[in-house]
């Protein structure tokens, strides 16, 4: 038997039509193979009417290449891309809600915020909301630093990313589709 392929964190970006149930169409393909989606974000893309899903999952490359093709097979999906961390610039955002009173007791508040390149979004007598954008290990580091101030709530967004590639493949794809459409005959009798 050959060695199993090594597991690593993959980022999958899915460009699709903006339609109801798209996320379900994509997620069931992960479910079938018992792949856990670590995080997910959905947003508009740079192209009007085209949506972009970004998902991350731990798996191996042969499996992910099959998953990508199976997602791309869905009718409402335009293109799917598979990345590892080296291929992309990526970030996530975290919010930390902490006790204002505990925070004010801390002498180093300003330096913590500055050191972690975070910022205060909102401060009331009861709570303070701190925001940090960065890589997972950076948002986690701030979490560890703030833990002693009684973190009341914490949330981390899914990953968002753009590629390092100089070529915009989705634009190329759309141009190709335009050519294909213009090449098709009109069906109206």
């Amino acid at each position, binding site marked *: 038997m050959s060695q199993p392929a090594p597991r690593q964190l993959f980022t999958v970006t899915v460009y699709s039509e903006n339609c109801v149930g798209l996320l379900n169409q994509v997620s069931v393909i992960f479910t079938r193979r018992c792949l856990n989606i670590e995080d997910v974000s959905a947003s508009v893309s740079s192209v009007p009417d085209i949506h972009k899903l970004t998902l991350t999952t731990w798996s191996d490359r042969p499996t992910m290449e099959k998953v990508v093709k199976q997602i791309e097979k869905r*009718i409402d999906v*335009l293109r799917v891309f598979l990345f590892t961390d080296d291929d992309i610039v990526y970030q996530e955002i975290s919010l930390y809600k902490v006790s204002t009173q505990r925070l004010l007791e801390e002498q180093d508040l300003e330096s913590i915020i500055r050191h972690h390149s975070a910022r205060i979004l909102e401060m009331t007598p009861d709570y303070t909301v701190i925001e940090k954008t960065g890589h997972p290990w950076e948002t986690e580091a701030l979490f560890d630093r703030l833990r002693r101030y009684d973190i009341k709530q914490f949330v981390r967004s899914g990953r968002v990313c753009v590629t390092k590639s100089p070529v915009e493949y989705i634009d190329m794809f759309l141009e190709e589709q335009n050519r294909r459409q213009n090449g098709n005959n009109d069906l109206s009798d």
Partner: protein
Amino acid sequence: MKELQEISPENPVSGAEALVRAIIAEDTDTVFGYPGGQILPVYDALYDYTDRLNHILVRHEQGAIHAAQGFARATGRTGVVIVTSGPGAANVVTGLSDAMMDSTPLVVITGQVGAQYLGSDAFQETDVIGITQPITKWSLQVRRAEDINAAVARAFFIARSGRPGPVVLDIARDAQTGIVDTPYRKINFIRSYDPSPVLNKSQIEAAAAIIRQAKRPLILAGQGVAISGAEKALARFAEKASLPVANTLLGLSTIPSDHPLYKGMLGMHGNVGPNHNTNRADVIIGVGMRFDDRVTGLASGYAPDAKIIHIDIDPSEFDKVVASTVAVHADAREALEALTEAVGERSNEEGWLESFDRCARIEDREVFEAELRRKDQAPMTMGEVVATISEATAHDAIAVTDVGQNQMMASRYFRFRSPRSFISSGGLGTMGFGLPASMGAKIGRPDRTVVCFLGDGGFQMTVQELGTIMEYGIGVKIVIMNNNFLGNVRQWQNLFYHRRFSQTPLLNPDFNMIAAAYGIQSLEVRSRAELPAAIEAMLADDKAFLLNIDIDPTDMVFPMTPAGKTVDTIMLSPDIYFTPEMIEKK
């Protein structure tokens, strides 16, 4: 038939009527369905179009979808199903999954509760889109009448193009009762979907270079050949380049059984020659097939010496199970025609083609002898029933099967002259498929004899469709190979579970009395001597007929590659495994 006035603001119609007219506009003349509360407006509209659209009222929604599958597979056209919401929709789920696995073009219309009730657990509401998304090529809920035309146009285009598959349109009641005032237009373009890949010349050239060098090549022809109408192209390619051809289960009848280059069926119960030679081949050419695990056996031991050329229109099949040396993303017919040109004439290693025939002689001696040539008093086998009926129909009938031993025996011993002559639930293996599928096949091809091979188990899973057969006088020839057992499971229990026949014996009713209750002629066949006359009676006219044939319950399907073993591990009987030495010994 009165001329239809085009839908326009001056001539508006209900969403339901627009739906019916759109289905007709897609060259549909037959639909299979069952009415219910949330699809009533569509059934009301159908009432005015019975001269253009033949609605077959089945007895259970599962029967409707399997019938539509049989219709689609026999004709190459899109099968259309109309059912109601909730239980009606849920009852077609098995068929959707089956059609998805077997690439069958279907458009399935499900009624749905009114838009304002969606999500409220309303009466007969179920999440049709959520349920069907993973098992359909595409599905869409339509909530507004003005969206019906576009939805139907997309549905038909998607269902029948590229690798065909089932599509669901879940139509909320509001959309059925609302107003449509625009005419229907077919489409042939969706920007996120490209079903017609342009043939890549470098892929063809790479494949051709490998085939020209091949010493021991083998073509594996699947259902993609039938879907693209590539039967003649396949035969020409094989003939010009001297390539032996084997079929997958669903590929059967894409090449005539008596073609000199046809070497038999692949898979768990396939023929010895193609299975054994798969692992001796140096080039495998898979055409419109997906290297299903029943074909490959243990994938890691599959075709170890072969370069794999994989031709398919669905790129997600490449490297899914078996890694390909060259993947040709194309329509099967286009690819085969281009390869015929590019490869030209070539020859095989001496003895390669003959090696299939040598294997066939061993199979004849070790398997056919016991299955087909039993002596007078011995109990009957399924193989001899199938072979005798094949002979009696001049090998030119459509064979529809259920699932299990009946299916494997039909695939092994029925012979084919014409395309689209074998209809079976391959990927999903749905018991209960056979009877309704045979109805659909006969409705689609009234000019052909349709023989449905069933076991006593599968027959009873959709036996209610005898009512449909009675009502519409559908002339299917129903052959129950009755061993009072769930025979295939029994076979596994016999071979691998120490003969512990857990829950496989069946106490059956009198099937001839059941047939009589539905006004269907039938005969019981208890001995070999009675068989020819019974078959003759069955085929005497074009009416439905049922044969209830006593079969030896110990009859087993051989050869057999046990699950998890390599494709060249072949049992010829419970005690004898095929060995290459058998060939040398003659």
